[in-house]
């Protein structure tokens, strides 16, 4: 859970990303980032999200992204293995897969509110990591930090599960920010 595992995770993602996912740019704003790797045969995707990757949005970001900066899209019925690493020196963070909120964004959410089976992590603190595995069911979702006050401060990203694609990818909607590619 501590430093060693974080380093292992980062190294793993680095190796995987340089061998299998290739980080190739499909379009200027659609790409396969270094923090996503996948196995088409096994229909598995690994996604690594670092909370407070940088100072964007007061540190309330995943890999530098927040709110509608990006959409992460994965194929339907794949197994998603999502790892959250927290580097925030000030606050815990979590991930809960929720429905997209159009009006009142919740102040706080626990795993009970995950809309996909077991698609949540507990709140983790600085230098800790947590994993969640879930079956991707077609639909539009949010990756939502459930810690009190974080989601309403923009710590969420859009997450889409699509029946009609064969590879996971990320689409950047808001450009010009320093983010993890």
């Amino acid at each position, binding site marked *: 859970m501590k*430093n060693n595992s*974080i*380093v292992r995770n980062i190294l793993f993602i680095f190796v995987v990303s340089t061998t299998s996912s290739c980080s190739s740019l499909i379009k200027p704003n659609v790409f396969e980032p270094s923090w996503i790797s996948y196995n088409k045969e096994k229909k598995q995707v690994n996604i690594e999200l670092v909370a*407070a990757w*940088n*100072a*964007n*949005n*007061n*540190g*309330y970001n995943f890999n530098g992204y927040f709110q509608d900066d990006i959409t992460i899209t994965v194929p339907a019925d794949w197994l998603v293995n999502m790892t959250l690493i927290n*580097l*925030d*020196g*000030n*606050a*815990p963070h979590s991930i809960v897969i929720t429905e997209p909120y159009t009006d009142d964004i919740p102040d706080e959410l626990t795993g009970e509110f995950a809309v996909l089976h077991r698609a949540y992590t507990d709140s983790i*603190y*600085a*230098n800790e990591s947590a994993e969640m595995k879930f079956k991707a069911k077609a639909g539009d979702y949010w990756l939502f930090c459930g810690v009190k*006050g974080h989601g*309403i*401060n923009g710590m969420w990203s859009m997450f889409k599960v699509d029946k009609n694609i064969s590879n996971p990818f990320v689409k950047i909607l808001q450009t010009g920010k*320093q983010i993890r590619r």
Partner: protein
Amino acid sequence: MKKYLLIASLLFNTPVSAEPLEWPSYGGDLGQSRYVNDASINTENVSHLKLKWMFQTGIVGSFENTPIVKDGVMYVTTPYNHLYALNARNGERLWRYKHKLGTTIYCCGPNSKGAAIAGNLVIMATLDAMLVAIDKDTGKLVWETTIADSEQGYSETGAPIIYQDKIIIGVAGAEYGIRGFISAYDLKTGALLWRWHTIPEPDQVQPDGTKGWTGIFTEKADGINDLHRDIAAEKAAIASGEFDNAWEHGGGSSWMPVTIDTATGHIYATIGNPAPDLDGSLRPGDNRWSASMVSLDSQTGKMIWGYQYLPHDVWDLDAASPPILTTAKDKQDKDIAVAVHAGKTGWVYVHDRKTGDLIRRSDPMVEHKNLFVKPTPGKGTEMLPGANGGVNWSPGAVDPRTHHVFYSNLHQPMHYEVRSVPWRKGRLWLGGAFKVIPGEKQSGNVSAVNLDSGKINWQYTTDQPMIGGTLATAGNLLFSGESNGYFFALDSRTGKKLWQFQAGAGVNAAPMAYRIDGKLHIAVAAGGNAQINAPRGGTVAVFTIEK
């Protein structure tokens, strides 16, 4: 016990009394000394200290409470503003009051440092920025009043202080761009009597004749350390008019209990960071009176003096730990009344209580790295102390016999970056972020500092960063606790550990003491801490020597 009392009287040359000793206020006395003039538990017999009773609140969050004791009853506040009255002899629950919380916005855990008591009222401040007065016998609400709009980010996590007929308390919320203040309320009715804003309006004349919050563009902290300010750029920004209203969201929380000199009626208070915390580009000038200690008249709220530790703070190395009133040597080696504060900077500051002049600053209690360096744009900078200090809110204790103070410290290397974002009502507004550095070891220490010289006498190091506080006794003991659940006693002269108890959850609250039935009791809350992720629980543990 009589045998111990006699031995203690002989060994420690200290009056040992069988009379009740109460702890009616957060810091014990209004000068927040956290010192108990009772040597019945001491370096010779502390190994016999045993748990007398425990109370389980059942409320898990971040337990920062120091209990108060009066007339044989202990009052405990918990996370989310539950208030318990307990029989101080055995921990039996007498009543519980639960505040019905409205909107709450807070940065650092659902904390409540403690209650205050006077007459038949127990006073608690709440996370939704209210004051409630509870009947001490029945636990029923007598009155309640709103301090500020919690939807803007105002909150109360500190303990109110009662002086004469007034309740005096500051407010938290600088991380959300509030404008801080200290207020006095009528004890009987809850009516607001006065309010002093920590961030002055532009035309408001300050004790040194300047106006507003821009100050005098101080270039060095304490006249010593370069703050690396671009004064010309700040003045140009002010001249542009773009930041004329920045003071309205200028921060400056006063979120720890104020200290009172009962001889003069003067208040001493620490003031926290400006807003936004890390982005100074939106608030040119000194940002008075953020990151300061101030003195106010308790009758009127009029400011007497202010000393700003970090003009234009952009590191969140502000002032939180409450002032301690004691005596120490001035520069002419004469004992004078002083106000002491330990900052997130890791220094202990000794001020002339009358004038606020800094008599001396101690040696650093923690490692400094890149102190007051500005971050590289787009990359940031590693810094020590990290986001929590130094000394965070943890109250210190003083031994007035030896002129020593004792503080809990944190060592947390961090990397900080700045990103400018606009203020939005009720939204987090740091203007950047602190990141931990994977692989960098964190730790803590308790430091004993000689107020007369500023020298560190001893340090007791811990594996984990320390948040909580200390208690000193005439038995030459220093009590404190660790995040790993150990509550311990050190020899206050040497720092040697003499006793410890495993409480089962982080001991991240300042201990207190009281005497009942002729026996000194030591009490501490063990419930962990949200800021440093210490294991949570909800225990109040009380110790004594029964023989």
